[in-house]
């Protein structure tokens, strides 16, 4: 075989190294520019898939303090509380004076060493300002709402399959507001078809120098961060079956910049503002303690409380671990709300509780029987490749026809209602004819809604029909899981939380979800590990997998022996009412049934205890101010009888804006054995993941926990932190003036930027008072220090979170038997 190859001489090669592109606009360059600029905003999902994520993720490449300066600059946002608030916290004792003083000393020392933090400010400002910028933003707000809505309007924007930019170009051409402007029209007509070329052209027309372009695009995106971050999310979910039309930031920017041109011409108010402010320095007033020192003092105060609790348990820990065998093992989501219910259950029954990521290791999407699309039920960090479909349980097959009938009647009513309401000729008579019904519904929802609401209630018949998870790969479910995959995922799940021996008779995977009424933000109260879905379905699925004898055999081969007597069950914890539903339809053995019924009654008592404990948060400000070594007694706080019906009713009340507190107040992530925190009342403020350092010889389980759950807790913490510090810029503001747009988001009032982040009511007790003072998360890991360090060395992205002070780390080293503070 002979190979002919034309060799280049060296001279020719050198020449080639200098690439030259011949087309005037290099599309790749524009794309890269936009991709870089996009890091200024994080993604924001549609409300139905609400996931708490740090809105300032793009700034994590900086040290926290420097990042806050940049954030303040770009978004005109607040990253800390006001000095007066902090001073009040010191006076109240919520910030420890000693800790504060030592931090002040440290700060003054550092100040001498490092003169000033220098931060490059945006070197350029937007061309439009004042009224012009208002016009640009107003148009953007209204146009984005129109383009992105695919469900609310009956007559949507035309030709959206041709792209955001195309539609804009054509709509503005016919906009009556610009009809007189022939110059504008001819100019619009001359715009290039490709958004890349158009964006590049716009930058040139606006006179943005090559070096400033990135910055200019960043500023353009930060002007309306809500739309930008939602579009960024949509861009990452191209061709998602929930949406018909795709959209991306490049086209968004092209439109935005052209709008600036349009309105600048119109108002002739183009005054280049003073540019190049150059370097800003974080100068604190002489003699004043900067707020970030207070913030750190607050965080360290709480860390000390938690450390003290763990230390006392560490000291008291004896080797007589062999407690009598527990009635059941219940695995809860690591969500902070599990802390309370776990504490309550342990206080009334002999149940061992564990914590794990609430998707229980199944990277799947789940298709409910009566829903159009499958929803991802795993953390956003994972792209699920498998799908679980719901099927009717054979035992309830007989009730299925009833269910279908009531569903079809319900569908018919809905359809008739819709067709009458939304047609020109019929909406008038419909409103009139149905008025009395609406009056009745309003009265019943307002005054009698503790009784079941009259209409739209096929829930009962649905309860009778039980839907089971179909996990297996089959012809009808080509995205199901193979046996090997089932073994792999379920085994990993058990190993991660260290549940590899001493199985109880019942092992119950308990997912969680909330029940609320008339609440666009319902998904924000659901399971974050399940991407804003309820966790019960995954629990059901993983239990089913582990009950399969074939799988148990395979797992036993790998060293995990599950006794034959052990039954796995799925369950769901309703975080609004604290009721726990166990999916126990398959239990037939009368002995087992007796014991499971006993467990259920215990859980009922635990629910009562936890409701009381949670309600204390609302009625006593004192209880929120620290972590408690023991369960808080409501009598001692002088709290009277707690009305349980009232709490449960919150899940049904259409006027309730604070049905529960979600993950508000999260301050720490604990990875380790339950014993170290048992008995103490942490006020639902700590994420807890079970981990058995002795059973994890190679550290792979810890590595996974740190790479995934820990990253997730940091995202959640970032969301709560920034939404609390500045609810206008990083939150959604007050619910009372919310206006749902499309089926994906919320606006404030008539028209605004898309509201992203948590609502005022989900973190504030009232307009002025935060329920908890936001804090950065502290991670506690119970493992040998060397193991933790080794993992951090391997993953620079994790290490950076600590070295850049976005997270705190404390290692509970069992070898040295003490707690080591890393930062």
């Amino acid at each position: 075989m002979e190979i002919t190859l034309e060799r280049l001489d060296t001279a020719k090669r050198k020449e080639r190294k200098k690439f030259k592109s011949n087309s005037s606009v290099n599309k790749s360059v524009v794309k890269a520019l936009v991709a870089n600029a996009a890091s200024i905003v994080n993604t924001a999902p549609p409300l139905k898939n609400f996931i708490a994520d740090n809105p300032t993720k793009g700034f994590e490449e900086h040290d926290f303090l420097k990042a806050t300066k940049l954030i303040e600059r770009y978004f005109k946002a607040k990253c800390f509380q006001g000095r007066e608030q902090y001073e009040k916290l010191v006076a109240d004792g919520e910030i420890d004076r000693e800790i504060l003083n030592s931090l002040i000393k440290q700060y003054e020392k550092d100040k001498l060493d490092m003169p000033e933090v220098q931060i490059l400010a945006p070197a350029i400002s937007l061309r439009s300002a004042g009224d012009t910028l208002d016009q640009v933003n107003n148009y953007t707000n209204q146009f984005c709402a129109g383009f992105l809505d695919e469900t609310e309007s009956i007559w949507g924007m035309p030709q959206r399959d041709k792209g955001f930019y195309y539609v804009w170009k054509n709509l503005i051409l016919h906009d009556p507001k610009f009809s007189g402007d022939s110059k504008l029209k001819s100019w619009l007509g001359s715009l290039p078809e490709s958004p890349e070329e158009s964006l590049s052209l716009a930058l040139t027309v606006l006179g943005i120098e090559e070096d400033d372009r990135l910055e200019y695009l960043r500023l353009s995106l930060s002007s309306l961060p809500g739309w930008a971050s939602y579009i960024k999310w949509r861009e990452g979910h191209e061709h998602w079956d929930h949406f018909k039309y795709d959209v991306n930031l490049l086209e968004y920017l092209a439109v935005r910049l052209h709008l600036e041109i349009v309105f600048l011409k119109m108002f002739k108010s183009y005054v280049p503002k003073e540019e190049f402010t150059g370097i800003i320095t974080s100068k604190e007033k002489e003699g004043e303690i900067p707020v970030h020192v207070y913030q750190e003092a607050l965080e360290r105060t709480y860390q000390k409380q938690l450390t003290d609790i763990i230390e006392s348990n560490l000291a008291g820990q004896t080797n007589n671990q062999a407690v009598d065998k527990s009635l059941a093992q219940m695995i809860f989501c690591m969500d902070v709300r599990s802390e309370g219910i776990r504490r309550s259950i342990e206080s009334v029954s002999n149940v061992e509780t564990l914590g794990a990521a609430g998707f229980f290791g199944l990277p799947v999407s789940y298709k409910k029987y009566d829903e159009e699309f499958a929803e991802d039920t795993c953390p956003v960090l994972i792209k699920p490749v498998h799908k679980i479909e719901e099927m009717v349980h054979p035992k309830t097959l007989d009730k299925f026809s009833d269910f279908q009938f009531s569903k079809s009647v319900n569908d018919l009513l809905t359809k008739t209602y819709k067709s009458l309401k939304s047609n020109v000729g019929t909406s008038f008579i419909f409103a009139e004819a149905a008025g009395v019904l609406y009056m009745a519904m309003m009265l019943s929802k307002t005054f009698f809604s503790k009784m079941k609401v009259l209409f739209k209630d096929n829930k009962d018949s649905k309860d009778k029909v039980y839907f089971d998870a179909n996990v297996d790969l089959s012809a009808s479910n080509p995205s199901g899981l193979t046996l090997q995959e089932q073994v792999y995922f379920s085994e990993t799940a058990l190993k991660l939380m260290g549940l590899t021996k001493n199985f109880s008779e019942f092992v119950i995977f308990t997912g969680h979800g909330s029940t609320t009424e008339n609440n666009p933000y319902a998904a924000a109260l659901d399971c974050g590990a399940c991407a804003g879905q309820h966790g019960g379905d995954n629990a059901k699925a993983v239990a089913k997998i582990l009950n399969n004898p074939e799988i148990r055999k395979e797992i036993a081969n790998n060293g995990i022996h599950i006794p034959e007597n052990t039954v796995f069950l799925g369950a769901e914890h309703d975080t609004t009412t604290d009721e726990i539903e166990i999916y126990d339809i398959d239990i037939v053995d009368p002995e087992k049934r007796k014991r499971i019924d006993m467990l259920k009654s215990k859980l009922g008592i635990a629910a009562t205890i936890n409701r009381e404990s949670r309600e204390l948060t609302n009625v006593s400000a004192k209880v929120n101010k620290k972590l408690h070594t023991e369960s808080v007694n409501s009598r001692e706080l002088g709290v009277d009888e707690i009305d349980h019906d009232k709490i449960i009713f919150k899940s049904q009340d259409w006027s309730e804006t604070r049905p529960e507190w979600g993950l508000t107040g999260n301050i720490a992530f604990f990875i380790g054995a339950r014993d170290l925190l048992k008995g103490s009342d942490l006020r639902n403020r700590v994420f807890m993941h079970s981990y058995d350092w002795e059973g994890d010889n190679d550290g792979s389980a810890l590595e996974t926990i740190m790479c995934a759950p820990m990253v997730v807790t940091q995202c959640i913490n970032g969301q709560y932190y920034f939404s609390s510090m500045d609810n206008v810029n990083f939150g959604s503001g007050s619910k009372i003036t919310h206006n749902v747009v499309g089926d994906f988001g919320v606006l404030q009032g008539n028209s605004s930027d898309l509201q992203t982040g948590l609502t005022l009511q989900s973190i504030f007790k009232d307009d002025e008072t935060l329920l908890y003072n936001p804090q950065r998360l502290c991670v506690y890991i119970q493992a040998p220090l060397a193991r933790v360090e080794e993992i951090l060395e391997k993953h620079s992205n994790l290490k950076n979170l600590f070295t850049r002070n976005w997270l705190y780390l404390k290692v509970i080293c069992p070898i040295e038997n003490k707690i080591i503070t890393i930062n």
Partner: protein
Amino acid sequence: MNLGSLFLFDTLAITISALVAIVAVIVVQYAKNYLHGDQKQGAFYIKLGALLSFTWLMLLSNNILVFIGFFFLSNYFLSQLMVHKKVWGAAKEAGGMALGYFSLGAVALLAFAGICYYSLETFTITEIVQGLGTMPKNLSILAFVSLLIAALAQCSQIPFHKWLLSSMNSPTPVSALMHAGLVNGGGFLLVRFNPLISSDTGFMTTVFFAGIISAFIASLWSFTQNTVKAKLVCSTISQMGFMIAQVGLGLFSAAISHLCMHGFFKAFHFLAAGSTLTKEYIKKVPLSLKSKIFRFAFSLVTAYFALQIFVSQSHIALEWFSSSSILLLFVFMSLAQVAYTVSLHLRSSFVFAMALFSSFAVAFLYGNMIHLFELLLKQDVQDYVYQITVWQYFALLPFVGIWTAMNFKQNLIEALPEKLQFKAYSMIHSSSLSPVEVNTVNRFDYNYKEAK
């Protein structure tokens, strides 16, 4: 002057007072939790109390100057409730804009009162109502125009619609109360002074067209809206248009019935405006055009018989070129729609029986309700059915046309050439948008916290 001449307790006033009372009770209870923790919850209840008291006093007062005073006061407090928090610039602007339109209405009413006094020498409403028919022509035209302007501004009818399109910065309970309450004021005005309108068929026709134009255009607006509340707002403008058109047809009791029932309908939808994300998924059943046409024809026949039931229950005469026939045509479309939707959805053999039954049932219930209102208002408000011209029928063409077309093709617009699509959408949608000053343009322009 005795109390009897100061207050007027007739069935019209009492009916509308009752509507306001029912919605008020619900809103008061709703806001207890909904506004919990809000800085302005206390102020909200105070303003709400003032608004309600003045509304009731307005409805019951028998002196036109007192009436206008309370009319303005209740509107003033409504605009204050709309603002809720002054720190939010957009809300403040929107409240100011509403107050502007309300003031225009009040001024028009003052002019109306002046003309009445000039001609009839009384401020007492009962006496004005009696004397309106005897006013000289030129004065009655002036009086009519000022009354109409006041009514249209209050009902947010084109061209006085901007304030309602900008009203979504209000807290949800305020919107609920507004759409079930003061927005109806225009209907009340027209019905209260109906002898003036019925003194001339020209007036009647004007009122009819003023209403039906808003009814149609706002319907189109509502199609292009992408937010829940904007859709409800456009729907209110359109429903109020229909109510005013009913007045223009001389069907005063039907108009009052519409006003009350729509109030409940709209208040409910506002209070439940957070529920839209929990839509249920309904599988679509594809059908061939042929079978659609067949079912549609069947529905028309069904609706014809159902209409007979409606006529027999409601006592509204079915007669061509009588003004009531317009209302009956709308009823006919709705009855046909019920039958059509049912026949499309059901797959089993008793489709047609079900369709027939539901259409008849609706006709029966609705007919009785209309009749009930007529009986209720009989002693104070008499309908005035008159002969209409063919032009009024022409006004219905767009409704009938779009109604039929929508039942056959979901995406009607997509059949048009692209350029026309853009043009039509742009024209309709951009005229329904709230102006920049009442919008929250920058993220940080929104504010919920008032400095102490």
